[in-house]
Protein backbone atom coordinates (compact mmCIF):
# COMPACT_ATOMS: atom_id res chain seq x y z
CA UNK A 1 0.00 0.00 0.00
CA UNK A 2 2.75 2.39 1.00
CA UNK A 3 4.72 1.56 -2.14
CA UNK A 4 1.57 1.99 -4.25
CA UNK A 5 0.96 5.50 -2.87
CA UNK A 6 4.55 6.52 -3.47
CA UNK A 7 4.38 5.20 -7.00
CA UNK A 8 1.16 7.08 -7.82
CA UNK A 9 2.70 10.28 -6.36
CA UNK A 10 5.71 9.86 -8.64
CA UNK A 11 3.44 9.33 -11.63
CA UNK A 12 1.36 12.43 -10.82
CA UNK A 13 4.48 14.56 -10.35
CA UNK A 14 6.04 13.23 -13.53
CA UNK A 15 2.84 13.84 -15.51
CA UNK A 16 2.56 17.43 -14.21
CA UNK A 17 6.20 18.11 -15.08
CA UNK A 18 5.80 16.78 -18.63
CA UNK A 19 2.58 18.73 -19.12
CA UNK A 20 4.24 21.94 -17.87
CA UNK A 21 7.19 21.47 -20.24
CA UNK A 22 4.88 20.75 -23.16
CA UNK A 23 2.77 23.86 -22.51
CA UNK A 24 5.91 26.01 -22.17
CA UNK A 25 7.22 24.57 -25.45
CA UNK A 26 3.90 25.31 -27.15
CA UNK A 27 3.61 28.88 -25.77
CA UNK A 28 6.99 29.70 -27.33
CA UNK A 29 5.90 28.32 -30.71
CA UNK A 30 2.47 29.95 -31.04
CA UNK A 31 2.60 33.55 -32.24
CA UNK A 32 -0.27 35.98 -31.80
CA UNK A 33 -0.52 38.76 -34.37
CA UNK A 34 -2.32 41.79 -33.02
CA UNK A 35 -0.81 45.28 -33.31
CA UNK A 36 2.54 43.50 -33.24
CA UNK A 37 3.71 39.93 -33.36
CA UNK A 38 4.53 38.13 -30.09
CA UNK A 39 4.46 34.57 -28.88
CA UNK A 40 2.12 33.59 -26.06
CA UNK A 41 4.80 34.46 -23.50
CA UNK A 42 4.94 37.99 -24.91
CA UNK A 43 8.39 37.44 -26.41
CA UNK A 44 9.57 38.21 -29.95
CA UNK A 45 8.75 35.34 -32.32
CA UNK A 46 11.23 32.75 -33.52
CA UNK A 47 12.24 32.47 -37.19
CA UNK A 48 9.61 29.79 -37.66
CA UNK A 49 6.63 28.96 -35.45
CA UNK A 50 4.14 26.17 -35.30
CA UNK A 51 1.01 28.30 -35.32
CA UNK A 52 0.15 31.91 -36.13
CA UNK A 53 -3.01 33.20 -34.45
CA UNK A 54 -4.42 36.20 -36.33
CA UNK A 55 -5.96 38.88 -34.17
CA UNK A 56 -9.60 39.71 -34.89
CA UNK A 57 -8.67 43.12 -36.31
CA UNK A 58 -6.85 41.45 -39.25
CA UNK A 59 -9.70 39.51 -40.83
CA UNK A 60 -13.38 39.64 -41.66
CA UNK A 61 -15.64 36.85 -40.57
CA UNK A 62 -18.53 35.52 -42.69
CA UNK A 63 -20.86 32.66 -41.90
CA UNK A 64 -22.49 30.83 -44.81
CA UNK A 65 -24.64 27.74 -45.02
CA UNK A 66 -24.13 25.17 -47.76
CA UNK A 67 -25.17 21.59 -48.34
CA UNK A 68 -21.69 20.08 -48.42
CA UNK A 69 -20.73 16.43 -48.22
CA UNK A 70 -16.99 16.50 -47.69
CA UNK A 71 -14.06 18.63 -46.72
CA UNK A 72 -13.13 19.49 -50.30
CA UNK A 73 -16.65 20.94 -50.79
CA UNK A 74 -15.95 23.34 -47.94
CA UNK A 75 -12.67 24.31 -49.61
CA UNK A 76 -14.62 25.03 -52.81
CA UNK A 77 -17.08 27.19 -50.85
CA UNK A 78 -14.14 29.11 -49.38
CA UNK A 79 -12.77 29.73 -52.91
CA UNK A 80 -16.24 30.82 -54.04
CA UNK A 81 -16.48 33.46 -51.32
CA UNK A 82 -12.93 34.75 -51.78
CA UNK A 83 -12.95 38.36 -52.88
CA UNK A 84 -9.38 39.12 -53.84
CA UNK A 85 -6.11 37.26 -53.63
CA UNK A 86 -6.05 37.44 -49.86
CA UNK A 87 -5.88 34.11 -48.04
CA UNK A 88 -9.12 32.71 -46.66
CA UNK A 89 -9.26 30.33 -43.71
CA UNK A 90 -12.38 28.32 -42.99
CA UNK A 91 -13.93 26.19 -40.30
CA UNK A 92 -16.70 23.64 -40.84
CA UNK A 93 -19.35 24.30 -38.23
CA UNK A 94 -22.37 22.30 -37.04
CA UNK A 95 -24.99 20.63 -39.25
CA UNK A 96 -28.22 22.64 -39.38
CA UNK A 97 -31.40 22.09 -41.44
CA UNK A 98 -29.66 19.89 -44.00
CA UNK A 99 -26.78 22.32 -44.42
CA UNK A 100 -23.41 22.92 -42.85
CA UNK A 101 -22.44 26.24 -41.32
CA UNK A 102 -19.09 27.29 -42.72
CA UNK A 103 -17.10 30.05 -41.05
CA UNK A 104 -14.94 31.98 -43.52
CA UNK A 105 -12.11 34.18 -42.29
CA UNK A 106 -10.63 36.46 -44.96
CA UNK A 107 -7.50 38.42 -44.09
CA UNK A 108 -7.68 42.18 -44.58
CA UNK A 109 -5.04 44.50 -46.01
CA UNK A 110 -3.67 45.18 -42.51
CA UNK A 111 -2.46 41.56 -42.38
CA UNK A 112 -0.12 42.06 -45.30
CA UNK A 113 2.36 44.01 -43.15
CA UNK A 114 2.80 41.08 -40.75
CA UNK A 115 4.94 38.23 -42.07
CA UNK A 116 3.47 35.25 -40.24
CA UNK A 117 6.15 32.59 -40.62
CA UNK A 118 4.26 29.65 -39.20
CA UNK A 119 3.21 26.20 -40.37
CA UNK A 120 -0.47 26.80 -39.52
CA UNK A 121 -2.61 29.95 -39.53
CA UNK A 122 -5.67 30.22 -37.38
CA UNK A 123 -8.10 33.06 -36.52
CA UNK A 124 -8.15 34.18 -32.92
CA UNK A 125 -11.95 34.18 -32.64
CA UNK A 126 -12.14 30.52 -33.72
CA UNK A 127 -9.83 29.43 -30.90
CA UNK A 128 -11.66 31.59 -28.36
CA UNK A 129 -15.05 30.27 -29.51
CA UNK A 130 -13.90 26.74 -28.60
CA UNK A 131 -13.41 27.99 -25.04
CA UNK A 132 -16.74 29.86 -24.95
CA UNK A 133 -19.80 28.04 -23.57
CA UNK A 134 -23.20 28.53 -25.38
CA UNK A 135 -24.60 30.67 -22.55
CA UNK A 136 -21.63 33.03 -22.42
CA UNK A 137 -20.59 36.11 -24.38
CA UNK A 138 -16.99 37.24 -24.34
CA UNK A 139 -16.18 40.90 -24.58
CA UNK A 140 -12.63 40.81 -25.85
CA UNK A 141 -10.86 44.10 -25.24
CA UNK A 142 -7.16 44.55 -25.88
CA UNK A 143 -4.84 47.17 -27.40
CA UNK A 144 -7.74 49.38 -28.47
CA UNK A 145 -9.59 46.54 -30.24
CA UNK A 146 -12.89 45.38 -28.85
CA UNK A 147 -15.24 42.72 -30.15
CA UNK A 148 -17.95 40.44 -28.91
CA UNK A 149 -17.84 36.71 -29.26
CA UNK A 150 -20.34 33.93 -28.69
CA UNK A 151 -19.96 30.28 -29.58
CA UNK A 152 -21.72 31.02 -32.89
CA UNK A 153 -19.81 34.06 -34.15
CA UNK A 154 -18.17 37.39 -33.48
CA UNK A 155 -18.66 41.05 -34.22
CA UNK A 156 -16.33 44.01 -33.87
CA UNK A 157 -17.57 46.66 -31.52
CA UNK A 158 -18.89 49.69 -33.37
CA UNK A 159 -22.00 51.48 -34.54
CA UNK A 160 -25.10 50.24 -32.73
CA UNK A 161 -23.37 47.12 -31.48
CA UNK A 162 -21.29 48.64 -28.71
CA UNK A 163 -22.13 46.38 -25.79
CA UNK A 164 -22.46 42.69 -25.16
CA UNK A 165 -26.20 43.16 -24.43
CA UNK A 166 -26.80 44.64 -27.88
CA UNK A 167 -24.65 41.94 -29.44
CA UNK A 168 -26.79 39.32 -27.68
CA UNK A 169 -29.95 41.05 -28.91
CA UNK A 170 -28.62 41.27 -32.47
CA UNK A 171 -27.55 37.63 -32.49
CA UNK A 172 -30.71 36.37 -30.82
CA UNK A 173 -28.87 34.80 -27.91
CA UNK A 174 -31.33 33.22 -25.51
CA UNK A 175 -31.95 34.95 -22.19
CA UNK A 176 -29.85 33.79 -19.27
CA UNK A 177 -26.48 34.41 -20.89
CA UNK A 178 -23.66 35.93 -18.92
CA UNK A 179 -20.89 38.26 -19.94
CA UNK A 180 -17.16 37.78 -19.49
CA UNK A 181 -14.55 40.40 -20.10
CA UNK A 182 -11.49 38.95 -21.75
CA UNK A 183 -8.32 41.01 -21.62
CA UNK A 184 -5.00 40.22 -23.29
CA UNK A 185 -3.76 37.84 -20.58
CA UNK A 186 -7.07 35.98 -20.44
CA UNK A 187 -7.10 35.73 -24.25
CA UNK A 188 -3.65 34.08 -24.21
CA UNK A 189 -4.87 31.49 -21.72
CA UNK A 190 -8.09 30.89 -23.71
CA UNK A 191 -6.13 30.41 -26.95
CA UNK A 192 -4.22 27.58 -25.28
CA UNK A 193 -7.50 26.15 -23.94
CA UNK A 194 -9.08 26.20 -27.41
CA UNK A 195 -6.13 24.62 -29.25
CA UNK A 196 -6.80 20.97 -28.30
CA UNK A 197 -10.43 21.35 -29.41
CA UNK A 198 -9.61 22.23 -33.02
CA UNK A 199 -10.84 19.50 -35.39
CA UNK A 200 -8.60 17.75 -37.89
CA UNK A 201 -10.42 19.36 -40.84
CA UNK A 202 -9.73 22.82 -39.38
CA UNK A 203 -6.05 21.96 -38.99
CA UNK A 204 -5.98 20.80 -42.62
CA UNK A 205 -7.55 24.03 -43.83
CA UNK A 206 -5.14 26.04 -41.71
CA UNK A 207 -1.88 25.20 -43.43
CA UNK A 208 -0.36 28.64 -43.98
CA UNK A 209 0.61 30.03 -47.41
CA UNK A 210 4.29 30.19 -46.45
CA UNK A 211 4.21 26.55 -45.43
CA UNK A 212 2.47 25.77 -48.72
CA UNK A 213 5.23 27.56 -50.60
CA UNK A 214 7.85 25.56 -48.76
CA UNK A 215 5.91 22.37 -49.48
CA UNK A 216 5.79 23.29 -53.16
CA UNK A 217 9.52 23.87 -53.13
CA UNK A 218 10.39 20.57 -51.48
CA UNK A 219 7.78 18.51 -53.30
CA UNK A 220 9.79 18.31 -56.54
CA UNK A 221 13.01 17.04 -54.89
CA UNK A 222 10.89 14.82 -52.64
CA UNK A 223 9.16 13.19 -55.62
CA UNK A 224 12.51 12.87 -57.40
CA UNK A 225 13.97 11.21 -54.30
CA UNK A 226 11.09 8.79 -54.00
CA UNK A 227 11.32 7.90 -57.70
CA UNK A 228 15.09 7.41 -57.40
CA UNK A 229 14.64 5.22 -54.36
CA UNK A 230 11.98 3.17 -56.15
CA UNK A 231 14.16 2.80 -59.24
CA UNK A 232 17.13 1.73 -57.10
CA UNK A 233 14.96 -0.79 -55.29
CA UNK A 234 13.68 -2.22 -58.58
CA UNK A 235 17.16 -2.41 -60.10
CA UNK A 236 18.63 -4.05 -57.03
CA UNK A 237 15.70 -6.45 -56.89
CA UNK A 238 16.15 -7.35 -60.55
CA UNK A 239 19.87 -7.88 -60.02
CA UNK A 240 19.29 -10.05 -56.97
CA UNK A 241 16.77 -12.20 -58.85
CA UNK A 242 19.10 -12.65 -61.83
CA UNK A 243 22.17 -13.53 -59.78
CA UNK A 244 20.30 -15.85 -57.38
CA UNK A 245 18.58 -17.64 -60.25
CA UNK A 246 21.89 -18.22 -62.02
CA UNK A 247 23.61 -19.46 -58.84
CA UNK A 248 20.81 -21.89 -57.99
CA UNK A 249 20.66 -23.16 -61.56
CA UNK A 250 24.39 -23.94 -61.38
CA UNK A 251 23.96 -25.66 -58.01
CA UNK A 252 21.23 -27.80 -59.56
CA UNK A 253 23.39 -28.65 -62.56
CA UNK A 254 26.25 -29.70 -60.27
CA UNK A 255 24.05 -32.41 -58.71
CA UNK A 256 24.16 -34.30 -62.03
CA UNK A 257 21.69 -36.07 -64.31
CA UNK A 258 20.75 -38.71 -61.71
CA UNK A 259 18.73 -36.13 -59.87
CA UNK A 260 15.95 -36.27 -62.45
CA UNK A 261 15.65 -40.01 -61.93
CA UNK A 262 15.72 -39.58 -58.18
CA UNK A 263 13.05 -36.88 -58.34
CA UNK A 264 10.91 -39.19 -60.44
CA UNK A 265 11.44 -41.92 -57.83
CA UNK A 266 10.40 -39.49 -55.11
CA UNK A 267 7.27 -38.63 -57.07
CA UNK A 268 6.45 -42.33 -57.45
CA UNK A 269 7.06 -42.81 -53.73
CA UNK A 270 4.63 -40.01 -52.89
CA UNK A 271 1.99 -41.51 -55.18
CA UNK A 272 2.47 -44.97 -53.68
CA UNK A 273 2.25 -43.63 -50.13
CA UNK A 274 -1.02 -41.91 -51.01
CA UNK A 275 -2.32 -45.11 -52.62
CA UNK A 276 -1.30 -47.17 -49.60
CA UNK A 277 -3.13 -44.71 -47.35
CA UNK A 278 -6.27 -45.18 -49.46
CA UNK A 279 -6.14 -48.96 -49.01
CA UNK A 280 -5.48 -48.66 -45.30
CA UNK A 281 -8.36 -46.24 -44.91
CA UNK A 282 -10.73 -48.60 -46.73
CA UNK A 283 -9.49 -51.54 -44.65
CA UNK A 284 -9.81 -49.47 -41.47
CA UNK A 285 -13.56 -49.16 -42.06
CA UNK A 286 -13.90 -52.92 -42.10
CA UNK A 287 -15.73 -54.48 -39.13
CA UNK A 288 -16.27 -58.20 -38.88
CA UNK A 289 -19.83 -59.52 -38.57
CA UNK A 290 -18.61 -62.75 -36.91
CA UNK A 291 -19.14 -61.44 -33.33
CA UNK A 292 -22.86 -61.28 -34.10
CA UNK A 293 -22.92 -64.96 -34.96
CA UNK A 294 -20.86 -65.61 -31.79
CA UNK A 295 -23.75 -63.92 -29.96
CA UNK A 296 -26.16 -66.43 -31.57
CA UNK A 297 -23.92 -69.23 -30.32
CA UNK A 298 -23.91 -67.83 -26.78
CA UNK A 299 -27.73 -67.70 -26.78
CA UNK A 300 -28.09 -71.23 -28.09
CA UNK A 301 -25.58 -72.61 -25.58
CA UNK A 302 -27.66 -71.10 -22.76
CA UNK A 303 -30.68 -73.02 -24.12
CA UNK A 304 -32.33 -69.88 -25.48
CA UNK A 305 -33.51 -68.58 -28.81
CA UNK A 306 -32.82 -65.53 -31.00
CA UNK A 307 -35.82 -63.55 -32.18
CA UNK A 308 -33.93 -61.07 -34.38
CA UNK A 309 -30.52 -59.51 -34.80
CA UNK A 310 -29.29 -56.37 -36.50
CA UNK A 311 -25.78 -55.18 -37.32
CA UNK A 312 -25.20 -51.62 -38.57
CA UNK A 313 -21.65 -50.33 -39.10
CA UNK A 314 -20.30 -52.48 -36.27
CA UNK A 315 -23.12 -51.90 -33.78
CA UNK A 316 -25.10 -55.07 -32.96
CA UNK A 317 -28.53 -55.34 -31.46
CA UNK A 318 -29.50 -58.89 -30.44
CA UNK A 319 -33.08 -59.66 -29.44
CA UNK A 320 -33.82 -63.04 -27.86
CA UNK A 321 -34.82 -65.13 -24.86
CA UNK A 322 -32.85 -67.34 -22.53
CA UNK A 323 -33.08 -69.15 -19.20
CA UNK A 324 -30.56 -66.66 -17.84
CA UNK A 325 -30.01 -63.48 -19.87
CA UNK A 326 -27.00 -62.47 -17.76
CA UNK A 327 -25.16 -65.66 -18.83
CA UNK A 328 -25.60 -64.61 -22.45
CA UNK A 329 -24.39 -61.07 -21.75
CA UNK A 330 -21.36 -62.41 -19.85
CA UNK A 331 -20.48 -64.76 -22.74
CA UNK A 332 -20.74 -61.94 -25.31
CA UNK A 333 -18.63 -59.61 -23.12
CA UNK A 334 -15.83 -62.17 -23.01
CA UNK A 335 -15.47 -62.19 -26.81
CA UNK A 336 -12.26 -60.38 -27.82
CA UNK A 337 -13.95 -58.76 -30.80
CA UNK A 338 -16.79 -57.14 -28.83
CA UNK A 339 -16.98 -54.11 -26.57
CA UNK A 340 -19.57 -52.13 -24.63
CA UNK A 341 -21.92 -55.12 -24.33
CA UNK A 342 -25.01 -54.15 -22.31
CA UNK A 343 -28.74 -54.72 -22.07
CA UNK A 344 -30.56 -52.35 -24.38
CA UNK A 345 -33.88 -52.76 -22.54
CA UNK A 346 -35.21 -54.19 -19.31
CA UNK A 347 -34.98 -57.99 -18.99
CA UNK A 348 -38.49 -59.43 -18.62
CA UNK A 349 -39.55 -62.88 -17.53
CA UNK A 350 -41.72 -64.58 -20.16
CA UNK A 351 -43.51 -67.93 -19.78
CA UNK A 352 -40.34 -69.92 -19.26
CA UNK A 353 -37.53 -67.70 -20.54
CA UNK A 354 -36.11 -64.24 -19.84
CA UNK A 355 -36.70 -61.87 -22.75
CA UNK A 356 -33.73 -59.58 -23.42
CA UNK A 357 -32.15 -57.15 -25.87
CA UNK A 358 -28.36 -56.92 -25.85
CA UNK A 359 -26.40 -54.18 -27.67
CA UNK A 360 -22.68 -54.31 -28.30
CA UNK A 361 -19.96 -52.93 -30.58
CA UNK A 362 -17.66 -54.99 -32.77
CA UNK A 363 -14.00 -53.94 -32.62
CA UNK A 364 -11.88 -53.37 -35.73
CA UNK A 365 -9.96 -56.47 -36.71
CA UNK A 366 -6.50 -56.55 -35.08
CA UNK A 367 -4.84 -57.15 -38.43
CA UNK A 368 -6.70 -55.68 -41.35
CA UNK A 369 -6.92 -57.38 -44.69
CA UNK A 370 -4.70 -54.74 -46.20
CA UNK A 371 -1.99 -55.25 -43.66
CA UNK A 372 -0.52 -52.73 -41.25
CA UNK A 373 1.16 -49.53 -42.31
Amino acid at each position, binding site marked *: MHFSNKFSDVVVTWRAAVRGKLIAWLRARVIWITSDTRDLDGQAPRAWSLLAVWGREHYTETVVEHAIAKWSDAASVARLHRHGRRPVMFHIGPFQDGKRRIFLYELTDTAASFPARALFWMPESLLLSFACSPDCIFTVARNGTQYFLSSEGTQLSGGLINSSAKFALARGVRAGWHDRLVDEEAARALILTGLPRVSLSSWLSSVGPLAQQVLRKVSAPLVAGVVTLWLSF*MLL*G*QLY*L*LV*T*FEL*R*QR*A*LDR*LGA*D*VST*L*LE*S*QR*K*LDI*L*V*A*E*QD*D*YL*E*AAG*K*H*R*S*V*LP*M*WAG*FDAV*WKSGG*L*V*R*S*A*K*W*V*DGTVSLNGASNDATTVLAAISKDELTSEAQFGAAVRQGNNLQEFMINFETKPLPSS*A*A*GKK
Partner: protein
Amino acid sequence: MSSRTRTLLAVLVSLLVARFFVLPWVERMEESRDNLRVLTDRLDRSEAVFSNREALTRSLADLQRNVAKMQANYPAVEDLSAFQLTQQQEVNRLLQQAGLQLVVFDWTLTGDIEGSVLSFARFRLQARGEVTAQAKFMASIETSFLNFSVREMGVSPVNAQQVAQQGGSSELSTVIDVYFRKRS
Protein backbone atom coordinates in the same frame (compact mmCIF):
# COMPACT_ATOMS: atom_id res chain seq x y z
CA MET B 1 1.76 26.85 -72.32
CA SER B 2 -0.46 27.42 -69.28
CA SER B 3 0.17 25.71 -65.97
CA ARG B 4 -3.04 23.69 -66.36
CA THR B 5 -1.82 22.33 -69.72
CA ARG B 6 1.54 21.53 -68.19
CA THR B 7 -0.12 19.69 -65.33
CA LEU B 8 -2.33 17.71 -67.70
CA LEU B 9 0.68 16.82 -69.84
CA ALA B 10 2.62 15.72 -66.78
CA VAL B 11 -0.28 13.52 -65.66
CA LEU B 12 -0.57 12.04 -69.17
CA VAL B 13 3.14 11.29 -69.35
CA SER B 14 3.06 9.75 -65.85
CA LEU B 15 0.15 7.51 -66.84
CA LEU B 16 1.88 6.42 -70.05
CA VAL B 17 5.09 5.67 -68.17
CA ALA B 18 3.16 3.72 -65.55
CA ARG B 19 1.23 1.74 -68.20
CA PHE B 20 4.04 0.94 -70.64
CA PHE B 21 7.11 0.92 -68.41
CA VAL B 22 6.39 0.50 -64.70
CA LEU B 23 3.62 -2.12 -64.85
CA PRO B 24 5.39 -4.42 -67.37
CA TRP B 25 8.58 -4.13 -65.31
CA VAL B 26 6.76 -5.02 -62.08
CA GLU B 27 5.04 -7.95 -63.82
CA ARG B 28 8.39 -9.22 -65.15
CA MET B 29 9.83 -8.96 -61.64
CA GLU B 30 6.95 -10.99 -60.23
CA GLU B 31 7.43 -13.60 -62.95
CA SER B 32 11.17 -13.79 -62.17
CA ARG B 33 10.36 -14.13 -58.47
CA ASP B 34 7.97 -17.01 -59.17
CA ASN B 35 10.57 -18.71 -61.38
CA LEU B 36 13.16 -18.34 -58.64
CA ARG B 37 10.75 -19.81 -56.08
CA VAL B 38 10.09 -22.82 -58.33
CA LEU B 39 13.81 -23.29 -58.94
CA THR B 40 14.57 -23.00 -55.22
CA ASP B 41 11.93 -25.62 -54.39
CA ARG B 42 13.36 -27.89 -57.07
CA LEU B 43 16.89 -27.38 -55.77
CA ASP B 44 15.81 -28.13 -52.19
CA ARG B 45 14.01 -31.27 -53.30
CA SER B 46 16.95 -32.34 -55.47
CA GLU B 47 19.45 -31.87 -52.64
CA ALA B 48 17.19 -33.77 -50.28
CA VAL B 49 16.72 -36.77 -52.62
CA PHE B 50 20.38 -36.72 -53.58
CA SER B 51 21.53 -36.98 -49.97
CA ASN B 52 18.97 -39.76 -49.26
CA ARG B 53 19.20 -41.61 -52.56
CA GLU B 54 19.95 -45.04 -51.05
CA ALA B 55 17.15 -44.82 -48.51
CA LEU B 56 14.83 -43.56 -51.23
CA THR B 57 15.57 -46.47 -53.55
CA ARG B 58 15.13 -48.97 -50.72
CA SER B 59 11.86 -47.39 -49.52
CA LEU B 60 10.50 -47.32 -53.04
CA ALA B 61 11.16 -51.01 -53.53
CA ASP B 62 9.57 -51.90 -50.15
CA LEU B 63 6.58 -49.73 -50.80
CA GLN B 64 6.06 -51.14 -54.30
CA ARG B 65 5.97 -54.66 -52.80
CA ASN B 66 3.50 -53.63 -50.07
CA VAL B 67 1.23 -51.76 -52.44
CA ALA B 68 1.30 -54.64 -54.94
CA LYS B 69 0.02 -56.93 -52.16
CA MET B 70 -2.75 -54.49 -51.30
CA GLN B 71 -3.65 -53.99 -54.95
CA ALA B 72 -4.27 -57.73 -55.19
CA ASN B 73 -7.19 -57.25 -52.77
CA TYR B 74 -8.72 -54.44 -54.78
CA PRO B 75 -9.17 -55.43 -58.42
CA ALA B 76 -8.68 -52.86 -61.14
CA VAL B 77 -11.94 -52.39 -63.00
CA GLU B 78 -12.40 -51.16 -66.52
CA ASP B 79 -15.91 -52.41 -67.26
CA LEU B 80 -18.04 -51.89 -64.16
CA SER B 81 -20.98 -53.94 -65.44
CA ALA B 82 -18.77 -56.94 -66.18
CA PHE B 83 -17.14 -56.61 -62.75
CA GLN B 84 -20.52 -56.42 -61.02
CA LEU B 85 -21.67 -59.50 -62.91
CA THR B 86 -18.57 -61.46 -61.83
CA GLN B 87 -19.00 -60.44 -58.20
CA GLN B 88 -22.69 -61.32 -58.29
CA GLN B 89 -21.87 -64.75 -59.74
CA GLU B 90 -19.31 -65.34 -56.99
CA VAL B 91 -21.80 -64.34 -54.29
CA ASN B 92 -24.41 -66.58 -55.88
CA ARG B 93 -21.94 -69.49 -55.86
CA LEU B 94 -21.30 -68.95 -52.15
CA LEU B 95 -25.06 -68.82 -51.49
CA GLN B 96 -25.54 -72.15 -53.26
CA GLN B 97 -22.61 -73.70 -51.41
CA ALA B 98 -24.17 -72.62 -48.12
CA GLY B 99 -27.55 -73.96 -49.21
CA LEU B 100 -29.32 -70.60 -49.00
CA GLN B 101 -32.16 -69.45 -51.20
CA LEU B 102 -31.68 -66.05 -52.84
CA VAL B 103 -34.60 -63.66 -52.35
CA VAL B 104 -33.19 -60.31 -53.55
CA PHE B 105 -29.89 -59.18 -55.05
CA ASP B 106 -29.73 -55.54 -56.11
CA TRP B 107 -26.89 -53.21 -56.96
CA THR B 108 -28.08 -49.99 -55.32
CA LEU B 109 -25.22 -47.52 -55.61
CA THR B 110 -21.86 -46.89 -57.20
CA GLY B 111 -19.51 -44.03 -56.43
CA ASP B 112 -15.98 -42.70 -56.12
CA ILE B 113 -14.23 -42.03 -52.85
CA GLU B 114 -13.08 -38.44 -53.07
CA GLY B 115 -9.32 -38.04 -53.33
CA SER B 116 -8.77 -41.81 -53.38
CA VAL B 117 -7.81 -44.39 -56.00
CA LEU B 118 -10.75 -46.52 -54.87
CA SER B 119 -14.37 -46.60 -55.94
CA PHE B 120 -17.18 -48.68 -54.56
CA ALA B 121 -20.36 -50.42 -55.62
CA ARG B 122 -23.05 -51.25 -53.06
CA PHE B 123 -25.44 -54.19 -53.20
CA ARG B 124 -28.36 -55.32 -51.10
CA LEU B 125 -28.89 -59.02 -50.58
CA GLN B 126 -31.71 -61.02 -49.02
CA ALA B 127 -31.40 -64.76 -48.59
CA ARG B 128 -33.46 -67.37 -46.78
CA GLY B 129 -32.26 -70.53 -45.04
CA GLU B 130 -30.89 -71.98 -41.87
CA VAL B 131 -29.22 -69.56 -39.45
CA THR B 132 -26.03 -71.67 -39.34
CA ALA B 133 -25.86 -71.63 -43.14
CA GLN B 134 -26.25 -67.85 -43.09
CA ALA B 135 -23.39 -67.59 -40.62
CA LYS B 136 -21.27 -69.81 -42.85
CA PHE B 137 -22.16 -67.69 -45.87
CA MET B 138 -21.20 -64.42 -44.15
CA ALA B 139 -17.96 -65.96 -42.93
CA SER B 140 -17.17 -67.02 -46.52
CA ILE B 141 -17.87 -63.48 -47.70
CA GLU B 142 -15.45 -62.06 -45.12
CA THR B 143 -12.67 -64.51 -45.86
CA SER B 144 -13.03 -64.81 -49.66
CA PHE B 145 -13.55 -61.14 -50.53
CA LEU B 146 -11.18 -58.82 -48.73
CA ASN B 147 -12.55 -55.90 -50.76
CA PHE B 148 -16.06 -56.43 -49.34
CA SER B 149 -17.17 -54.34 -46.41
CA VAL B 150 -20.48 -55.15 -44.71
CA ARG B 151 -22.44 -51.99 -43.87
CA GLU B 152 -25.62 -53.53 -42.52
CA MET B 153 -26.89 -56.98 -41.69
CA GLY B 154 -30.11 -58.24 -40.16
CA VAL B 155 -31.50 -61.64 -39.29
CA SER B 156 -35.21 -62.07 -38.72
CA PRO B 157 -37.28 -65.21 -38.41
CA VAL B 158 -39.43 -66.48 -41.23
CA ASN B 159 -41.68 -67.49 -38.40
CA ALA B 160 -41.04 -67.20 -34.70
CA GLN B 161 -40.90 -70.94 -33.97
CA GLN B 162 -38.38 -71.73 -36.72
CA VAL B 163 -35.78 -69.27 -35.56
CA ALA B 164 -36.20 -70.28 -31.99
CA GLN B 165 -33.66 -73.06 -32.07
CA GLN B 166 -30.37 -73.81 -33.74
CA GLY B 167 -31.14 -75.09 -37.23
CA GLY B 168 -34.22 -72.88 -37.56
CA SER B 169 -34.95 -70.94 -40.74
CA SER B 170 -34.63 -67.18 -41.02
CA GLU B 171 -34.17 -64.40 -43.52
CA LEU B 172 -30.81 -62.70 -43.87
CA SER B 173 -30.65 -59.17 -45.27
CA THR B 174 -27.41 -57.35 -45.76
CA VAL B 175 -25.91 -54.29 -47.45
CA ILE B 176 -22.32 -54.66 -48.64
CA ASP B 177 -19.84 -52.25 -50.23
CA VAL B 178 -17.48 -53.69 -52.85
CA TYR B 179 -14.28 -51.68 -53.21
CA PHE B 180 -12.27 -51.68 -56.44
CA ARG B 181 -9.61 -49.63 -58.20
CA LYS B 182 -10.51 -47.18 -60.90
CA ARG B 183 -8.63 -47.98 -64.08
CA SER B 184 -6.87 -44.72 -64.98
